[in-house]
């Protein structure tokens, strides 16, 4: 590598291959864990500041270091423009606290969606303008179509296709559709020197 600084691109590319747009709003970055190769597009908001204020009893008793991860994201995730990741919150033992939001690998979040789930599995496609309610649990290989409202506390089992307000199971992911969830190709198409999508 030459010593000359490369021109400022639209994205910041980290050592682990994350591509974070300069125009993305990441609050509380120290509480946001990125697994690598994750794309965060402009105008994305991740609320890492909403950390858990009350530790689980087992943790506080053992005296371990408080786990302050608010949002953890796996590898090859794609957060489209204008989406928002927000840890869910609720009353716990009489006091309000946020809980961490965990997202697996190969998770696509469409433009303008708000995700407040407790867990999002791997290979999940969340469409555009979707609202995922607080403490929803989305398992692996789930497709949420555009405009869906997933009610709070809903559990979406694997291989479901859901849509509607509130979300309703409308189909199952076919056996041949598993590969369509892979986001390795789309990862290459964004960044400071994007490659064209393979035809």
């Amino acid at each position, binding site marked *: 590598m030459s010593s000359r600084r490369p021109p400022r691109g639209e994205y910041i590319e980290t050592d682990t291959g994350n591509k974070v747009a300069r125009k993305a709003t990441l609050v509380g970055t120290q509480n946001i864990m990125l697994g690598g190769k994750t794309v965060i597009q402009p105008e994305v908001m991740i609320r890492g500041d909403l950390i858990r204020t009350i530790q*689980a*009893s087992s943790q506080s008793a053992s005296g371990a270091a408080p786990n302050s991860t608010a949002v953890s994201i796996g590898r090859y995730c794609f957060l489209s423009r204008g989406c928002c990741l927000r840890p869910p919150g*609720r*009353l*716990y*033992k*009489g*006091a309000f606290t946020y809980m961490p939001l965990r997202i697996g690998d190969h998770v696509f979040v469409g433009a303008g969606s708000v995700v407040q789930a407790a867990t999002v599995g791997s*290979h999940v496609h969340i469409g555009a303008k979707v609202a995922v*309610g607080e403490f929803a649990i989305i*398992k*692996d*290989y789930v497709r949420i179509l555009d405009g869906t*409202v997933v*009610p*709070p*506390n*809903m*559990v*979406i*089992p*694997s*291989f*479901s296709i859901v849509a509607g307000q*509130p979300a*309703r*199971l409308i189909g199952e992911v*076919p*056996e*041949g*559709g598993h*590969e*369509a969830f892979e986001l390795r190709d789309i990862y290459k198409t964004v960044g400071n020197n994007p490659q064209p999508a393979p*035809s």
Partner: protein
Amino acid sequence: MAAPTPYTYIQCPCSDVSTLSHPSDPNSPTGTEADEDDRTFDPRAPRSNYSLYPLEYLLYCEDCHQIRCPRCVAEEIVTYYCPNCLFEVPSSNLKSEGNRCTRSCFQCPVCIGPLAVTSVETKPDPRLLAPDNIAAPHSGPYALTCSYCHWSSTEVGIQFEKPNSIHAQLAKLRNGGTTRLTAKERKERRRDPAHRSATTEGEESGEQEDLDLETQFANLKAFYQNQLADPNSADSGLAALGDLGFSSPTSLSRIMSIYTGGSLQDKKAKSRVGAMREALEPDEGLQVANLDESAAIEQLQSEGHDGTACTAQRVDQPPHLGEEHLHGRGRFTSELRPIPYLLRTKRSKRCPICRHIISKPEAKVQTTRFRIRLVAGSYIPSIAIRPLSLSNGGGSASGAAAVPGALLDPLRPTHYLLTFKNPIFETIKVTLGAPSKTPGRFASKVTVLCPDFEIDANTDVWDEALKEGGGGGGGGGERDRERERRRRKREEGSQSNNNHNQLEVGKIWERGRNWVSIVVEVVPASLRVEAGDGPLREDEDVLEIPMFVRVEWEGEAGGDEVGSVPTRDRDTREKRELAYWCVLGLGRIRQS
């Protein structure tokens, strides 16, 4: 409603009329054979709706070497599980408990959102939701609440004493909170004369005892069984029906007389029919219908249409649990009960012909792996469609016409790039056939510029990289090297083609490691409706091209093939071929 254009659907051969009518008939008359060869697949035919699938939905049977669709595979249930708590339900439970979750998983009857157990008194009690609230004192009663539409089970008067085993508690409750008798209790109550007299006397409504649905049915059943068994009320024929079924000759003659219209009926039997009487008392199961619907009318007036339950909501309701009587039940949303979650299944799929399993998921609910998953996408080439604009001979496959979802201009030649990707590890030879005019009222002209081409094998990406880096390496056999040389040569040919960038008949547009792009020229039809013809029907403006795809390759001969010699590896390679119809949906034609 516009489909994401462009798209490719593949026809499963199971619905092909020619294979259905005479499967593998070698000596069929030649006249019909030629007829079938000429027949083109019409994607607009009403039947086509049921046979066209996107590639992802198709499976492939390795033994029959044929495509299998969701309609023709035989499914077998591997696991039942609740979609909410993700607990597996053993099939023995299924027989006794039904196909719904018997834990505490419920859906909102109004909006089908998930219901959560919350304490009624202190508005949603935080302690309840916590996972470790063993020490915390519980404060009942509890109710099921929907966090989406804020429905609460208190609306139908249902509250629970405990926050767990809601299903068992709910089974004992009617709407309004009155207890529903279990079968055992009902039996005891019927036997107990003191209770019976007490209720009949205590009924302030007067002469009629109020029977709930189950009690009424039990009483009626007991009464009719008594009637049939009682030797005094009826003689031998009827008694035999109740006791022994249909084994005695008298009962048989009675049944015969029913069907033969009285010709076998003797006078004796006639007198017997009248011997049975109907229920007259509540003890015998008589329940006078409550025809007074003024309350329902009043409610309808006050609540209006919004207060009534829609058909979908009523269908979701568990039958005969909420109300005491059959009359006037389930009309209003205020009478709807929580719905226990319907169980979901994991299913394995078998080939309908050879019964081999072609898809089998792991039995555990939480795992997403498959033991067997033979999807068509790893056996037949995928077809991707891309509009190709040749503005001022530039040739780059982009431009104004490439906007997805744009309408096609009628009578203007448009070019599309079809990219075939070979998923198998053999070189395949593809032959395409498309009718020059699409079927239907508005025939668009179609020209496949290169209907015959070869696609190189889907070699391992690493093999490729090693070969190119190490200059041949030496790992690949002679055959591979020869193929590589051939590929290079072809690539050069296509490159020169690219430079010229003109549409040449019989030339491949572009070629890659395991893919080939060809050009299809389409002249969309004009959608002008002639005088006297009907108006434009729904989706008649969609331009769909039926295309027959024939794939040939040399595969390893399987051991089960007749006449194959497994010892000589090189010679056991055999020609394979697969042919099917597919539909290329290009988009909608602009209406002039």
